[in-house]
């Protein structure tokens, strides 16, 4: 009873002129309006209008790609909130961490969300890649989307790595020291590359600022672009691969 009247009220709302002017359609009651709901919407139109119901099963993807994407969204929101309390300066950055813990309401919670979300995203992206491999999701015509994926993997790792320095505590400082020392082993280009990344020979204020700019501007922008291409290509390549597609006939 209540459901019915709620449904009717919603349908009535969706039939109003204002609703239609915003969403360019009435209630999604027919397949035509359901299609319009997808390709008439800037954000949804990277998705296909129809999907194979095999590819909707949990076992088909474990929603790992979706989880990677949602983690990126959550990290963007919590990251922007963290930016309100953070200065990329030595030693103010560390004091900001202390303030998040002791002064800002729910500051620890916010930082925890961002930190654990980041760890989860690294795991989700790796797992997604391996799962795509095992179901043959890289085979024609999906080859290029796999390459886009490798780009996303590198960006995800680099995002996590640049974020690691920002708290400016012992953990951050020495982890980045270990990592950037490896760069200097690259023949010829090693030293210049390390200098470019750190803005000097030591990890100091310049390095913190560069890592910050990479972490909050350059890498997220690159990630947004590649994710958009990635999702759109899933649709253009004709939808997802499910395991049976490449299993051999017995």
């Amino acid at each position, binding site marked *: 009873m209540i459901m019915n009247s709620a449904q009717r009220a919603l349908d009535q709302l969706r039939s109003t002129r204002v609703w239609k002017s915003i969403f360019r359609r009435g209630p999604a009651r027919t397949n035509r309006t*359901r299609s319009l*709901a*997808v390709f008439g919407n800037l954000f*949804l139109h990277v*998705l296909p*209008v*129809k*999907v*194979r119901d*095999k590819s909707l099963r949990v076992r088909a993807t474990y*929603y790992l790609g979706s*989880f990677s994407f*949602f*983690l990126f969204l*959550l990290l963007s929101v919590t990251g922007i909130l963290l930016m309100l309390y953070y200065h990329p300066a*030595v*030693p103010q950055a*560390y004091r900001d961490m202390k303030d998040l813990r002791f002064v800002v309401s729910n500051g*620890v919670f916010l930082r*925890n*969300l*961002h930190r*654990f*979300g980041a760890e*989860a995203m690294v795991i989700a992206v790796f797992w997604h890649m*391996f799962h795509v*491999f*095992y179901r043959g999701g*890289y*085979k*024609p015509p*999906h*080859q*290029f989307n796999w*390459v886009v994926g*490798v780009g996303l993997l590198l960006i995800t*790792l680099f995002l*996590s*790595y640049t974020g690691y320095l920002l708290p*400016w*505590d*012992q*953990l*951050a*400082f*020495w*982890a980045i*020291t*270990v*990592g950037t020392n*490896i760069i200097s*082993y690259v*023949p010829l280009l090693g030293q210049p590359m390390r200098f470019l990344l750190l803005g000097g020979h*030591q990890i100091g204020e310049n390095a913190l600022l560069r890592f910050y700019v990479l972490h909050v501007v350059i890498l997220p922008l690159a990630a947004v672009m590649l994710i958009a291409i990635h999702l759109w290509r899933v649709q253009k390549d004709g939808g997802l691969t*499910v395991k049976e*597609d*490449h*299993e*051999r*006939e017995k």
Partner: protein
Amino acid sequence: MSEKNRYEAGFGSDAQKEPRRIVFITKKTSAKVKGEVGRQVMSYPQLILREAIAFEILTIVLVVIALLWDAPLEQLANPLLTPNPAKAPWYFLGLQELLHYFPPIVAGVLIPGLVVVALVFIPYFNVNIQGEPLWANHPRRRLNLFLGCIVVLLVFFGIYHAWTVIIPTVVISGLALTAYVPAAGRGRFLEFLGSRPLSWWVMTWFITVAIILTIVGTFFRGPGWSWVWPWR
């Protein structure tokens, strides 16, 4: 052929509304390899709803974790006070473990570089697109080749005493070898192993080694990168 007339000239305006499907069957992939497309459903609401549920589950789990545990924060960074051992973020600890055995140019540059190149090239090796089992054709020749490769790898790892790499390599190649004996009627697991293609074995080996190196680097390495038991 009774429908023939419907598509003749004169009904031209109609023809556009009745699209016909043309199928190309190329030599590379047999038409059989691609399974049935099966039933299709509308993304809105079927897909959107599931994605929304996935998002909610993720958010709830993450919030619970963030309420139960706190992100680490140590003392203010001090360039003069080197912790022992200094560890990279956990996802690079596999590399750091390799760095312990191999010269830096191999562990720090060559291996990660080759891994990235290999990943990029995976979809462009169209050698075994149907996924034939490793031992399906020319089993003798393949066995010799396989054993040769394993011996070369093990000798290389052995020179550097990289035993956290050697152990998983021996285990995985051992499993691949048990699959050499025809598996029919030897149980589901062995039959499964027997049906796996080479690419599956290589990837599974890679993932196993990577996970073991990461776990060892994270929990089992102490001062001077010596072996420690995490529960001691």
